[in-house]
């Protein structure tokens, strides 16, 4: 249980703690890594030479993300009625699917819950529980995709020393999540929806562009020139809501301590590097760890890991098979 509370606390904004206790297995591996006289350089070079090429998970993810957003668009434009509505609420083959954060805002603002809303939200909660909670962010959210491109630009400009990344206290997202909840309750209006780039982009794709896209452009400029992935990392309450959904999710990125060279490439590509604190030398409490609730399961670390220490995994699946 402490594993889950740690992952929850880290998601809410606390910095990851150094583990107080190691399992015997982890302790053994940590010790071996310290004392064993092995030519690490040679092993690392070997691993790098033989690592999988390309970014298969990114390609899968982008295809899925673009595919699902296109499905919304074609369902409306060609009236094929597979996925109607927008990301805030939709019908998949007639079944209600309602975005958990939007539903939360509506429930707080309206203070009345109708059955369809409950069914749709419940379906999405169950679905994303199995698929990993914040998986929504990296596999569905259209803003995530454009933010990834903005991030590429930011990293390039940062290398050229044109911009620097300004970090914020991660706890601010939790505070904002609470504030937006209270605001919805007090004002009786879904306040966050007015600036949600997820909703704005989704509707712009389906119903045509509007002036609200200017706000999305501003956010992207903020991420490019001021703070890397600023919106997703420090503000977006949707991410936190889905994070809650996925705390106990079986779908995870699994970390295998014994395979890791502690080079830290994964942390450089990660949107939420605090979930990868465990890959630092001497930080994994167990021989097998998972990345925690705030992980968006985007698979960037899986793609970049030269030694196969980070893998997608479904908890308990090997027992079933």
């Amino acid at each position: 249980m402490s594993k889950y509370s740690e992952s929850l606390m880290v998601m809410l904004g606390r910095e990851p703690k150094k583990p107080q206790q190691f399992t015997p297995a982890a302790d053994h591996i940590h010790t071996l890594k310290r004392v064993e006289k092995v030519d690490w350089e040679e092993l690392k070079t070997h691993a790098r030479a033989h690592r999988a090429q390309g970014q298969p998970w990114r390609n899968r993810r982008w295809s899925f993300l673009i595919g699902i957003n296109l499905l919304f668009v074609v369902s409306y434009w060609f009236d094929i009625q597979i996925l109607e509505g927008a990301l805030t609420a939709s019908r998949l083959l007639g079944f209600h699917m309602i975005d958990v954060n939007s539903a939360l805002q509506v429930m707080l603002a309206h203070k009345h819950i109708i059955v369809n809303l409950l069914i749709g939200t419940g379906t999405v909660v169950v679905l994303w529980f199995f698929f990993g909670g914040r998986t929504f962010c990296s596999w569905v959210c259209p803003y995530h995709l454009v933010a990834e491109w903005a991030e590429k630009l930011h990293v390039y400009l940062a290398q050229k020393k044109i911009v620097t990344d300004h970090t914020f206290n991660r706890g601010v997202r939790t505070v904002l999540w609470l504030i937006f909840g209270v605001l919805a309750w007090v004002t009786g209006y879904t306040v966050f929806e007015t600036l949600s780039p997820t909703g704005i982009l989704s509707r712009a794709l389906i119903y045509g562009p509007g002036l609200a896209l200017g706000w999305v452009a501003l956010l992207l400029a903020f991420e490019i020139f001021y703070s890397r992935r600023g919106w997703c990392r420090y503000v977006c309450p949707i991410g936190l809501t889905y994070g809650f959904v996925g705390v106990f999710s079986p779908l995870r990125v699994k970390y295998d301590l014994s395979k890791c060279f502690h080079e830290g490439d994964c942390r450089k590509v990660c949107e939420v590097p605090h979930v990868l604190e465990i890959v630092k030398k001497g930080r994994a409490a167990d021989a097998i760890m998972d990345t925690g609730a705030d992980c968006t399961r985007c698979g960037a670390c899986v793609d970049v890991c030269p030694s196969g220490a980070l893998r997608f995994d479904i908890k308990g699946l090997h027992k079933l098979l």
Partner: protein
Amino acid sequence: MSTEKPQPTHPLINKRKLEDRRRFLRTLFLAGTAVGIPLLGLTPMARGWESRMRPPGALDEKDFLSSCIKCGQCVQVCPVSAIKLDDIGHGFGIGVPYIDSRTQACDFSCDAVQCILACPTGALAYEKPDFLLVRPGAALANKPILLAKEKSAEPTLNLKERTGLAKLVRPEKCLARQGKGIKGAARGPEFKGRMRFMEVDRWKPIPLRDHPYDLELCDLCVRTCPIKGAISLETVVENGVKIRTPVVHEPCVGCGVCEMVCPAEPAAIVVEARKTWEGA
């Protein structure tokens, strides 16, 4: 001469502490901006600076705004594309559906008020929960009878409240009152608005411009009104002269068809959003 070591003029600046402080201030500013911007945008919305027509079955404005999830499913099912989603311009009502009757009115050509059926949150509802406000004059005396299905077993629209009320706001523009007729398309050859005409095709709305008229006296608002008994042309005596004038009656639900078809420019008759019936 003092033997004391000279004190540094500035206490040693701890770079880490300084960065921490900067970060804290930055974070504070970020939070302030993220909360401030939507609140700023909320003002015109909450104050109702601009009154927008909502789709049929909409809850009372405040309840409607709080319960709408901004998914646009109502937009998708409307056969005449009467429903549009609001943008940033109108007090940040981003994604909230509205109807601009003059451009494209709701003519109930779906028969079943499908937008209500599509709404996942009950922002548009057939049956309002008891604790929600029904303003006096908003409730309809009877379920409105849809002329298009007057002869079917269930001729009514499942609506209990009006979304607005038609009103002859520019009587001086009204063709009927001037004794004028109408020849050709109601709104000219450029107008893109569509309507369902029972005598043309029950299920396929056609552009208004493809349905020309040739009338001695214009009565388009009466002729096209989809609701039974909502409007009629009456003879009145004004300044000693007998004239014909459109009169709105209690069954009017505020669909906006009369506003769309009115050949006068600007329209003589318009639908006022959320206006209630105060008696004839």
